[in-house]
Every structure is written in structure tokens, then in C-alpha cells.
């Protein structure tokens, strides 16, 4: 193996693998931060550190790296890179060098985020970075701003690249109605990224400008307004959750239909109703993060209705997921277990978002562990399960080898049980008043045993994830050869050899009239 051909590669598959390695490393570090936090919370009062700032820095790193360094890059970096050109029958992306730039900028962004542990005065501003705290703390706010700017820029050029690729580089015969759901989902996510990342970039630049360059965006004494930041931040960061959701549910569609050998139920409903609906609504609901912020009432009321209406496109996608299973032929492989897990666990996460969408109900539970439980169910559980489902599913394709089914299932059940223990308990104590971002809960002694239960659950959960990652590492090195199409899927990426060579196919593939990525044939 030629190391130079990996590091300087411009091939979409290798860029994808680089994304995978980087984002899993980020996941491991952020996961260890979570375990440190859980250890700290296992008793009232100081447990493993006497300095609250340490806890706050872990929490900052955990939130920022999990979202910006793990899930978004794994989904829009790894899966998009590896799968999209293969699914549309292209030999590479439109701008291979831009693609390489995007992955190395991603690494630079993650390096900046993790420098937190080596610099004096690390950032302690939480991933939301609200002023005035972020502009008066001694912590290094600039580090956060640059992390976000660089990761955001990497994502924007990636988005431009893929939108152009899908628009112009599809193989003959692949019409828009024959694109994999995953491709549609990812395009939707990239459109959201292009529109909203610049707003986030602006927001986080403004806090550093206020802090270091003497501007007055958020200083009321000079005519500024602190709420401006929160609006800009959530104007991006709500759509960001759909930037995570869309590709991950796309992965679930691919995995579910492959291992159930069944066509996606009501394809057009998913594409136009589901994905289209989410892209249209994503930008009109950000105020649901500001229900207790003290901003204008009329905005809160209006966005309550739009937030609730997000359940419509998402519900259509759930119907399609469930419908795909109807009269199908399900093999309970490891990727399928993770994908089915998503169906159940995303229901819990999504539905617990419904009370949060109602401002009057949120007045009591906002900024409590109920919210933490909600978003871990949708993101940390459903999102991570989808990523794991996808990695297992395409593992034979990108490595050419097979993982171990037994250890795959062991890892799945450990995470499944652990997740529910941890995150269900969170919602429970949240409703009873446990606020989030607490280093210590001295005035809530009644929650100590619940916190201990969650700490124990987190260890089980982390063990399950670690087993999965080890399974891939060992499988990639020693697994038995997998063959070109182990799942018997008609989708285009399975028609080339495993792992695909540079250029993907000797000659660009062309597809038959009746071909469809989900047209399963007997035999």
C-alpha cells in the first residue's frame, strides 16, 4: 500500500475512507469526554475533578465534536463520498481536488477542536457559544470560531461539489426518479448546508470579533443586542439537525430495503413529500430553541405551528420505512438490526420533540435533561445507529472483506440496551426538574441514584460502540473476502468489484430500461 496515494488522494472513495477514519476518531474522543462527564456526575459534589471548568470544557468538546466532527462529516463526508458516485454510475466527483481540500480542511478543523486539551484557557462556552458569556470568559472563544468556520467551509465546498456531480455526472439511463433515496436525502442536506452554514459562520465570527476586535454586535451598552446571536445561531443549528437527519434516514432506507429485499414503499412520497417537505420547513422553525429566551411572542407562536408541522414530512418517511417491511424478506444481519433499531428509537426521539415544540410546555422543560434525552435519542442513538448500520452495510464494498456477525450482534445489543437506560432516565429526571450543563447537582439530591444508573448505562453503551469499531478494524485486516454483492442488491454500487478500483468501472455503466435501485428480482 502506497501511503502517498492515500494522503494526497483525490479519489472519492479514498477521500471517503479518510473522512471515515477521522470522524470515528472524533467520535471516540468525544465519547470518552461523555464518559468523563458521566463519571463526574456519578456522585453529588466533586467526583473526578474539583474544578467545574474541566467539566465545562469536556461538555463543550463533547457537544461540538460529536455534531461537527463526528456526525456531519461521517454522513455528508464518508457516506456521500463513498456512495454517491457509485450510486449514480460516475467515475468520480466533479472536482476531485476540491474534494481532497474538503477532507483535509475537515482534519484541520478537528485538530483545532481537539487542541482544546493542550492549550491554556480552553474554550468553555458550550457548543452554543452564547454571548455575553462567550465574549467575557477567559476561555479561548477564537478556537471555537475557527473550528466552526473551517469545518463549515469544508462542508460548503463539499456541498457544491456533490450538487454539481449529481446534476451533471449521472450515467446514461439514471433519471431523477431512479436515484437512490440516500442520494436524494444527501442532496437535500447539502442544499441546507449551503444556505445555512454561512449564517453559522457569521454568528461565530461575530462573537470572536466582539471579543477580540472590539466590535459591538452584542453589547447593549453600545446599541447591540444579545439575542441577535441566538437567532443567527439557531437559524443554522436547527437546520443542522436535519443535515444530520436526512442522510442518516437515507442510509436507513438503503439498509432496510437491501436486507428486506423490498422496494422502498411509495418512493415519490419520500422524495417529494418527505425530503422536499423537510428542506422547505427546516428554515422556519429555529425559534423553538428560543422559547425561554425572552424574545418576541409573535415569533414563538408562529414557529410553534411550523415546528409541529415538521412531523408531517418526517411522519411520511416513517410510514415509508415501515411500509417497506410489509411482505418483505427480512434477514436479521447486523446492519439490519441497527436499521430496525433506528425505526423504534427515532420514534421515541422524534415524538418527544412534539411537547418541546409547544412553547408553553417548553417553559418548564427547556434546558433540562428532558431536552438532553430528546436529542440524544434522535441524534446520539438514532443517528449513530444509522451510521453504524451504514458502515456495516457497505463494509464488504469498501474493504472487500466481511466483518464478524457474532460480535456485530453483541455490539448492537449492548448499545441498544445501554442507550435506553441512559437516555430514557435523562428524560425522566428532566421532567422532574434536573437542569442541564450542571457540573454538580447539590440541590437535587433526589437524582443521585438516577445519575448513577446512567453512568453505568453509559459504560455498557460505550462498550457496545467500541466492540463495533474493533470489529471493523479486525474485519478490514483479517476478514474473509466478501464478494461483489453479498446482500443481493440491485443498487448500482454493488455491480462493481469490491473494493472498487480507481475509476469505479472500466467503462461507465449504463442501465436497462426497467432497472431501479430497488427492483429486486427473484433468483
Amino acid at each position, binding site marked *: 500500500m502506497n501511503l502517498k496515494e492515500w494522503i494526497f488522494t483525490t479519489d472519492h472513495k479514498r477521500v471517503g475512507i479518510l473522512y471515515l477514519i477521522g470522524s470515528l476518531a472524533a467520535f471516540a474522543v468525544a465519547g470518552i469526554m461523555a464518559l468523563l462527564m458521566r463519571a463526574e456526575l456519578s456522585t453529588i459534589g466533586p467526583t473526578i475533578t474539583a474544578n467545574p471548568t474541566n467539566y465545562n470544557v469536556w461538555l463543550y468538546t463533547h457537544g461540538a465534536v460529536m455534531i461537527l466532527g463526528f456526525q456531519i462529516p461521517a454522513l455528508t463526508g464518508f457516506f456521500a463520498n463513498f456512495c454517491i458516485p457509485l450510486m449514480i454510475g460516475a467515475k468520480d466527483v466533479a*472536482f476531485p481536488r476540491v474534494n*481532497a481540500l474538503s477532507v483535509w480542511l475537515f482534519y484541520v478543523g478537528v485538530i483545532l477542536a481537539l487542541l482544546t486539551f493542550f492549550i491554556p484557557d480552553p474554550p468553555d462556552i458550550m457548543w452554543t457559544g452564547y454571548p455575553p458569556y462567550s465574549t467575557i470568559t477567559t476561555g479561548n472563544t477564537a478556537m471555537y470560531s475557527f473550528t466552526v468556520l473551517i469545518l463549515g467551509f469544508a462542508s460548503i465546498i463539499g456541498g457544491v461539489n456533490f*450538487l454539481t456531480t449529481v446534476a451533471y455526472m449521472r450515467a446514461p439511463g439514471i433519471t431523477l426518479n431512479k436515484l437512490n433515496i440516500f442520494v436524494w436525502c444527501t442532496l437535500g442536506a447539502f442544499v441546507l448546508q449551503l444556505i445555512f*452554514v454561512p449564517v453559522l459562520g457569521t454568528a461565530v465570527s461575530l462573537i470572536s*470579533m466582539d471579543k477580540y476586535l472590539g466590535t459591538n454586535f452584542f453589547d447593549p451598552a453600545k446599541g447591540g*443586542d444579545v439575542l441577535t446571536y441566538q437567532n443567527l445561531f439557531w437559524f443554522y443549528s436547527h437546520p443542522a439537525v436535519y443535515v444530520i437527519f436526512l442522510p442518516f434516514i437515507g442510509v436507513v432506507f438503503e439498509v432496510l430495503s437491501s436486507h428486506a429485499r423490498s422496494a422502498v414503499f411509495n418512493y415519490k412520497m419520500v422524495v417529494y413529500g418527505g425530503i422536499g417537505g423537510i428542506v422547505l420547513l427546516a428554515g422556519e422553525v429555529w425559534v423553538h430553541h428560543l422559547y425561554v429566551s425572552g424574545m418576541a411572542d409573535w415569533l414563538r407562536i408562529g414557529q410553534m405551528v411550523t415546528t409541529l408541522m415538521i412531523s408531517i414530512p418526517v411522519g411520511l418517511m416513517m410510514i415509508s420505512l415501515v411500509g417497506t417491511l410489509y411482505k418483505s424478506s427480512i434477514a436479521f444481519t447486523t446492519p439490519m438490526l441497527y436499521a430496525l433499531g433506528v425505526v423504534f428509537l427515532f420514534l421515541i426521539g422524534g415524538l418527544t420533540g412534539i411537547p418541546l415544540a409547544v412553547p408553553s410546555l417548553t417553559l418548564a422543560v427547556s434546558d433540562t435533561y428532558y431536552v438532553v434525552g430528546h436529542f440524544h435519542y434522535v441524534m446520539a442513538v438514532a443517528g449513530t445507529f444509522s451510521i453504524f448500520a451504514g458502515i456495516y452495510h457497505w463494509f464488504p464494498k469498501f474493504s472487500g472483506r466481511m466483518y464478524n456477525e457474532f460480535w456485530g450482534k453483541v455490539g448492537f445489543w449492548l448499545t441498544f440496551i445501554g442507550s435506553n437506560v441512559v437516555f430514557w432516565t435523562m428524560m425522566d429526571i428532566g421532567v422532574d426538574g434536573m437542569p442541564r450543563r450542571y457540573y454538580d447537582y447539590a440541590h437535587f439530591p433526589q437524582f443521585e441514584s438516577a445519575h448513577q444508573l446512567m453512568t453505568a448505562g453509559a459504560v455498557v453503551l460505550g462498550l457496545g460502540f467500541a466492540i463495533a469499531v474493533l470489529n471493523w478494524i479486525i474485519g478490514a485486516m483479517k476478514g474473509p473476502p466478501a464478494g461483489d454483492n453479498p446482500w443481493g442488491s440491485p443498487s448500482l454500487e454493488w455491480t462493481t468489484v469490491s473494493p472498487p478500483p480507481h475509476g469505479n468501472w472500466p467503462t461507465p455503466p449504463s442501465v436497462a430500461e426497467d432497472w431501479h435501485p430497488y427492483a429486486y428480482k427473484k433468483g
Partner: protein
Amino acid sequence: MAHEAHHGDAHAHAHWDTSVWPFVISFGILFLALAFSLHFVYHASFAAILTLGLAFPLIIAGVAGWTSEAMGKGEGLSYGAMGWFILAEAMIFISFFVAYWYTKLHVEVWPPAGNVTLPKVLPLVMTFVLVSSSLTIHYAEHLLHVGNKGGFRIWYLLTMILGATFLGMSIYEWSHLIGAGFTISTNAFSTIFFSVTGLHGSHVVVGLAIFMAGLPSVMRGDDIDEGFMRTAGLYWHFVDIIWFFVVSQIYYW
């Protein structure tokens, strides 16, 4: 670097395209970010300058290497891609304007204390100059299309001169205001004023840099890639359109 052409699967693994420049640029940007922290957060200005000394050569070498490696090998898709990129760029400006409106509309007294009256005529002249440059680049593209290379060169140069003039007027105005004690930290309005005009000015600089990159081959009279010209022109029109918003919102409202 190596590209294309595989003759059969047999040695498919023998040729993987590579390019070192994306890697080089990325790490240049890392050092840029570190330099900012060193200077503004840790007040270690000497270390910051050393770091900048690493950052700039890497970035410049990266851009230069990339340009020479990829020039003329474009797939002709850059025009479509530029459209998406402009969407993202527009959102940056919109964010600043929204921050401006949000602040302005919620406070009781506007503008806040310490304001000066902005010039009213100069921005009109600047608008005139920038709009003209949009027209000249359009005409230059047209001449290139019909094959009039000499004419193309003249209008191309004229565009660059107009752009530079615009920039000059901007600098003139800034220095006057700063001389009068109106700086970016005076109040919320000055903050908006300098950041929005500065952001727009930086786009003019980038536009001029793109033209500059094409200048050698234009002067030599080489065959000019029409796709490149159209893409550069599109970006320039965008910079022009944004200026209308800047003028109307910042100067006259």
C-alpha cells in the same frame, strides 16, 4: 499529477490520482487559525508572526501549485458550481443584514451615540463605477465569444481598472471616517458599517484576484477558456448586486 486512462482492470490499483496542494493549503489555514489565537488570545505576537510565516507560504504555494496543475483541465462544470457557491456567499451577507435589522428595529434610539454623518455623494459615484465594471466585463465576454481578442483584452483591463478605482474610493472613505474618530468599536452602527463594507470590499479583492490570475494569459493572447471567463464574470456580477444592498441599507436607511 497522474490522471485518467486505465487500460483494463489488471493494474487498476497502479494509478490513483493524487494532488499535494489541497493538503498544503489546509495546513496553511491551520496555521492561520493558530496565529489568530496566539496574537489575540495569548498575546504572543512573536510566535504569531512566526506562525503566519508558515501559513502564508503554504497557502500561496498551494494555490499556485493547484492553479498550474489544474488550469485548462476543468470539466466545464465550474459555472454551475459557482451558482451554488454564490448562494452560500449571499447567505453571509444576508446574515449581516439580518443582524443589522434585528438590532436596529428593536432599540428605541437609533443610531446610537457617537455617530457621524456618512457621505452621500461618494457612494453614488462608487455605485456608478461598480455598475460600469459589471457592464464592461459583460461586453468583454461578448467580444471573447465572437473572437475579438484585442477588444476583449481592452475591456478586460478596463474592468480591472474600474474595480481598483472602486477599492481606492472605499479606502479613501474609510480613512476619512477613522480619522474623524469613527471606528469599528465606536458603537453598534459603526460595527455594522465597517464589517459590511469590509466584507464587501474583500469580495471585490477576491474578484480582482481572479481577474489577476487570468491576466498573464490574456496579455499573452493565449486561448482563453470561455467557461473560466463566464464563471469569473458571474462572481463579479454578484459582487455588484450585493453592493446595491450595502448602499441602500447602510448609507441611505
